[in-house]
């Protein structure tokens, strides 16, 4: 049995949440949260934490040398740096529109990297 302390980021209150995990890393209990969102957040954080990834990619023929991109939805936290490597390989050519797919299904996550600006 292990305990993990975390701060829920679902809302500005920031409850200090304690999660108990068994030996298989399954959540046994969540304490300290004041609402169900805290429970959900804590369980996800302990089992498969995910994060939005934002960065820039190289752009040719545009107004600026780079253009901003993001993951269309959160990706597993541990894949952030690997995903950055993929993003750094890409060169886009202007014109680019908001929402254009830059990398389809990055690293098999099922999540696309999309442009978040236009040029």
């Amino acid at each position: 049995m292990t305990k993990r302390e975390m701060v829920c980021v679902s809302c500005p209150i920031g409850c200090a949440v304690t999660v108990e995990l068994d030996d298989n890393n399954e959540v046994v209990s969540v304490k300290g949260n004041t609402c169900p969102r805290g429970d959900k957040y804590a369980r996800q954080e302990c089992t498969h934490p995910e994060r939005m990834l934002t960065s820039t990619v190289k752009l040719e023929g545009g107004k600026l040398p780079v253009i901003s991109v993001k993951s269309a939805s959160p990706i597993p936290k541990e894949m952030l740096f690997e995903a950055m490597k993929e993003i750094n390989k890409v060169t886009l050519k202007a014109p680019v529109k908001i929402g254009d797919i830059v990398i389809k299904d990055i690293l098999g996550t099922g999540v696309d990297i999309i442009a978040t600006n236009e040029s």
Partner: protein
Amino acid sequence: MKYDVAVIGGGVVGALICKELSKYDVKIALVEKCNDVAMGTTKANSAIVHGGFDAMPGTLKAKLNVEGTRIMPSLCGDLNVPYRNNGSLVLAFSDEEVEHIKVLYDRGVKNGVPDLEIISKEKVKELEPNVSDEVKAALLSNSAGIVCPYELTIAAAEVAVTNGVEFIRNCEVKAISEQGGVYELETSTGKIEARYVINAAGNHSDEIAAMIGDDSIELVARKGEYYLLDKSYGSLANHTIFQCPNKMGKGVLVTPTVDGNILIGPSASDENEKDNTDTTPEGLEFVLSKAFKSVPSINIRGAITSFAGVRAHPVTDDFIIGYSDKSDRFINCAGIESPGLSAAPAIARYVESLLIEKLSPEIKKDYAATRKAPVRFRHMNEQQRRELIKKNPAYGRIICRCETITEGEILDAIHAPAGARDVDGVKRRTRAGMGRCQGGFCSSKVVEILAKELGKDMNEITKFGGNSKIIFERTK
């Protein structure tokens, strides 16, 4: 390259010497180890034109200060450099200090300082309502003034270069040898030959002299720290306000600057390291505590920056100017501490006279003694602005919003003779980045403009030359 004269050091002294010499038909190099002029003591001092009552009668300091202060207004007029004859006060807070300002008064009279006056507490408060109520009397020096030391230097270098002086940057003199009446300067950028050498190397003038075997110059690096307050505090003082001098110098002053800020400082501490311009908590605290004594309403929340300068204090306590004992073709200008800025115009003329005695050169017919006033959008009225932008649209693009500096002014600064090559160079010439946001908004734009105009990548642009790079490689 072969020159008649090599001037080592692009501070206010070196630049003004070059300006004076550039009226003659001689080939001159201004050799500077940094990326710009005015990078040493010139950049960080009190920016004061002293009356001239501090130095002992008969010294070079006394003579050249009074003379320099006399010349300064017309020189600044010729160079279109802001100068203000605001006068100075030395405050006396005790009977002992009242006696001391009388001594200063007598000394000033002996030195030939015009318009000195000892004034009562009432008169002091009338002239400077923010001065402490503790004041008993003051010495008023009506001939004193303020000037921007780097603008003076930049303007002098511009005139010099316009008249044919070659400005060689990033050129550190490593060794000097002599062959057949010609000096060979071994520098970081190659060899320079010159018949005459003028050593105006500031804190390093002792080392330069030693390169020809002249070990007579003994300097102490004396650091002074300052605070600069925002323009909204500009009305705190109108005169330059001194306290009674001590053995380390003229003490902490409170003064307006020609740009409308308030400058307080300096501290005075002797350093082992000549180029150590780090500010220290102790130094800044000292400055503040002393300044409070003169003007109790000073508020440190008004500080927009702090800085330190190192002045070359000669152990002899007087300027060392003249031909070296080791050579009649090597002129030292060393130990130029306060009142060096005030004296600089006179030092330049003195060195000019020493040199032409030997060279007897012709005066150029096409010598241009004046500098055209740089465009200052912020000082223009609506009609002038309208016409200016019509003539050149680059003046319609504001780059520095705090100081209202246009792209056109930045382009002018870069393309001027001896123009800016780095972000600080642009800042000193235009004031871009000198306002309350201290370049937070405009510095990246200035980097972009510098890169474009100099044909470089943005990451090759520095803050002040050397390894003072601003950004590294591209992210992608």
